[in-house]
């Protein structure tokens, strides 16, 4: 009897191995081996607690890889994630160390995550957006399973303490009042408040805040409806509130970094409570004034950060690796790390490790943070079709108009693939029909300026509204020939940007695309011109070909912008991403 059982067991094991081989072969799990970050220097955090030792984190572009320092991981999960999860790195490290499951975090906007699901999950094993609504709206094919919230955090206003006191919403001790959304609108209309906020069509924090503004200002007591969206009075008031936006972006995490890098210029932002908390930690370390968390009395939306398995026919191993990773994220060691960066992990928004010193600091009442969950009174979320309509309305009518100057390298080395990438990129970003697919289409008030350059900048071409055909034709027809002097082109771009700033009513940015090392004859002239202009205009350099990262990073850091890397991936998609930032 015993012998028979043994034989049966052995046969079963063999069977399992064969079965697994077949199934793994079918899945994309083996394809997602962590190669993406292999050429970047890996850094190991020496401060990590002993139980999660042995996890190495590497980062390249928008991919962060968590792998075992020694040995092979049990499996590697490829996760499409919101950028705010960068702040949860220590919790992720714990879960990777505890389970031996490596993860690749591919950071992207909420809309992109929704698109991943709509497309059948592509080659992702899991999605981790900031809110369940993106899963429910995107998962029309019913491919997600085991959806579980990892933490919650409300979308709030973070306002520099002195500014909050000046507005009458706080006192010296950090105790805040909760203004209504109508009162916030009033402050904006009186010119007393401007704020940074992510794009509602690119990022969950922006979308949540925008839906909350609409719901609160509708004063209807219920969820937003299609009829509300047709009400000109309501949409007019929301547009007036959005006129207070001084900087936009496609990423909540980057928005926070942008504010921290220049707190004098940016006194307020709409963002997650957890990211205001993180910003404050960095601000205080730098000796700057912290921001206070202001919870609008009538319109909060809560991010519930759900992690879900994407079932696209991978092996059972992929799902069980996912489950063990998910379970480890719910263990006290991981939830402690989440709360240390200001996320709430208890049910109903409770903080469960409140007695930990770092958690106490993260939820500091001196920053206006109300640890008690009663502060989280959220709006009822509208139905899915109303959300879609509202987002389209944002992009085509209610958002503040953007003014983008595109300075594009047409030097000889751009001949061929480089120029094709640029033309495709501009088309995806500016052709109304193509851009609508990514919800970055131009509004009637948007302005786009194209300045092709080589050794000298060309004539600029200005396109107003959605009529971008002439600009795109100009981009196609310009020949790639000559040397590279991006600074001369930037001087010209700055003239346009400064004029737009003076005119008012726009968020203004310069997108600079270059594929080579620039001449530097005009570098100093540009840098002093930028300083003299004294305008808050970010430069978003797009790196391509043999571009010099040092030259480009200098520009993004000078202007509090961000460098995008188009060298390894699809250049056109980088243009699209840049447009999502303005």
């Amino acid at each position: 009897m015993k012998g028979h059982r043994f034989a049966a067991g052995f046969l079963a094991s063999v069977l399992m191995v064969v079965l697994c081989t077949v199934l793994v072969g079918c899945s994309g799990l083996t394809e997602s081996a962590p190669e993406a970050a292999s050429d970047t220097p890996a850094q190991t955090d020496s401060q990590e607690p002993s139980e999660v030792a042995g996890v190495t984190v590497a980062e390249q572009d928008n991919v962060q890889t968590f792998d075992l320092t020694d040995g092979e991981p049990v499996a590697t999960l490829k996760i499409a994630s919101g950028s705010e999860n960068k702040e949860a790195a220590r919790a992720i490290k714990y879960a990777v160390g505890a389970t031996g499951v490596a993860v690749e975090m591919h950071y992207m906007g909420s809309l992109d995550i929704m698109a991943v699901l709509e497309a059948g999950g592509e080659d992702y094993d899991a999605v981790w957006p900031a809110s369940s609504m993106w899963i429910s709206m995107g998962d029309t094919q019913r491919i997600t399973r085991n959806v579980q919230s990892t933490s919650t955090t409300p979308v709030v206003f973070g306002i520099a303490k002195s500014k909050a006191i000046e507005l009458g919403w706080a006192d010296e001790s950090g105790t805040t009042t909760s203004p209504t959304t109508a009162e916030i609108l009033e402050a904006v209309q009186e010119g007393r408040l401007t704020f940074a906020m992510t794009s509602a069509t690119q990022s969950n924090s922006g979308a949540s805040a925008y839906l909350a503004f609409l719901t609160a200002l509708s004063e209807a007591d219920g969820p937003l409806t299609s009829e509300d969206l047709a009400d000109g009075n309501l949409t007019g008031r929301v547009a007036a509130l959005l006129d207070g936006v001084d900087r936009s972006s496609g990423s909540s995490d980057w928005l926070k970094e942008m504010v921290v890098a220049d707190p004098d210029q940016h006194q307020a932002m709409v963002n997650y409570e957890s990211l205001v908390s993180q910003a404050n930690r960095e601000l205080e370390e730098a000796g700057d004034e912290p921001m206070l968390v202001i919870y609008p009395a009538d319109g909060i939306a809560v991010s519930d950060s759900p992690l879900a398995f994407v079932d696209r026919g991978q092996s059972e191993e992929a799902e069980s690796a996912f489950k063990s990773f998910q379970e480890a994220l719910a263990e006290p060691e991981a939830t402690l790390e989440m709360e240390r960066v200001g996320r709430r992990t208890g049910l109903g928004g409770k903080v469960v490790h409140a007695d930990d010193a770092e958690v106490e600091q993260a939820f500091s009442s001196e920053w206006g943070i109300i640890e008690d969950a009663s502060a989280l009174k959220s709006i009822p979320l509208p139905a899915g079709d109303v959300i879609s309509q509202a987002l389209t309305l944002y992009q085509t009518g209610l958002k503040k108009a953007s003014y983008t100057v595109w300075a594009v390298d047409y030097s000889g080395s751009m001949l061929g693939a480089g120029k094709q990438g640029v033309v495709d990129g501009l088309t995806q970003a500016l052709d109304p029909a193509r851009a609508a697919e990514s919800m970055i289409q131009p509004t009637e008030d948007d302005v786009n300026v194209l300045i092709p350059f080589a050794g000298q900048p060309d004539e600029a071409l200005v396109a107003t509204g959605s009529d971008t055909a002439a600009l795109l034709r100009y981009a196609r027809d310009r020949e790639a020939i000559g040397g590279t002097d991006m600074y001369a082109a930037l001087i010209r771009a700055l003239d346009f940007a400064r004029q737009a700033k003076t005119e008012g009513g726009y968020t203004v940015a310069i997108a600079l695309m270059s594929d080579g090392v620039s001449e530097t004859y005009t570098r100093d002239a540009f840098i002093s011109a930028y300083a003299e202009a004294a305008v808050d205009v970010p430069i978003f350099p797009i790196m391509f070909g043999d571009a010099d990262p040092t030259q480009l990073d200098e520009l993004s850091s000078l202007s509090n912008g961000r460098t995008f890397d188009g060298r390894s991936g699809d250049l056109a998609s980088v243009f699209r991403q840049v447009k999502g930032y303005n």
Partner: protein
Amino acid sequence: MSKGRIIGLICVLAAVLVVGGAMLFRQAQPEPEPAPAPVEPIEMTGYLGGEKISLFDDPEFISLAEQAALSIGYRKAGSLAMMEAPIEGMDYLFPSSQAAVAHGHERGIEPVSEQIVLNSPIVIYTYRDVADALVGSGIMAKDGEVYTLNVDAAVEAMLADRTWADLGYTAGYGQFRIDSTDPAESNSGNEWAALVANSLAGGQPASVESIDANVGSIRKIFAKSGWMETSSEDSFRQFLTLGEGSKPMMVGYESQVLDLSVNEPDLFAQVADSLVVAYTTPTVWSTHVIMALDEAGEQLTEFLMSDEVQKLAWERHGFRGASQLGTDSAERFGVAGIAERVPAAVELPAPAAMGRLIEVVSGS
């Protein structure tokens, strides 16, 4: 069919071939020793409603099945969706409502037998301060520890656009509403819609005519929720995660909180003092009917009806048995306000009326 699906199908086929081949291989092998032949487990698979997966995955359930020489596989499917899915090779269907069974019959599914094996009443989940505040309004009532929610009063208050504050819950934001899953997708929302429709029909089972006469009212009530989840599990999780400030009231199954108390005691402890389970008046039950499609399916029915499984389903997952009672007192769960006996169910609208109701809520 998407590329992913095709690849998935190829994988499944490949797996079946490998398993089948290996089994043939195994059968062809001589027994390694002349011991008495063990009982070959009967392999079976079928479609299972998601809320019962925790039971089917329970190690004790699996071990009981082994003892009964059964090897029970499943594929997760919604109660209505499984009736539309291909049933070739399936031994059973295990939806969570009679309405789904009726839908299956209409689609030409002819099971060899049908048996109600598990029951769980539909309840309204809420929080103590919300429930207590609403007692004065006549919507909630409290008898000892057990709360009930009067569906007629709730429907009336929603139609009158009462706010939470109007009804006594001053901390509430906006209008009084009861969230549910999407009635077109998920059983708990579907049964809640039936209760609402019955109430609007004056307490009678709603008919196509009465539903057509109340289209505006039905839509108005469901529009108050705005966003609706498509799965009862997801919506219960959202209720717990987002809490009172976002989700003051949510339709669910009684078994969900009982399962939580046993299987996730730490999580349950966070809400043990504040969570309220309110039984609806009148009551409606989620009825888990096993539809056996063949001999193996019938074996599963017999197994599920066994005392051991009925006891396990109650003790560890909170499902009441075929009798609508637990196998012992509900006190075992330590969940406040669980009724020992829940009154018999109202009659649901006929299948045609249920169909019309789903159309109305979906906006067609």
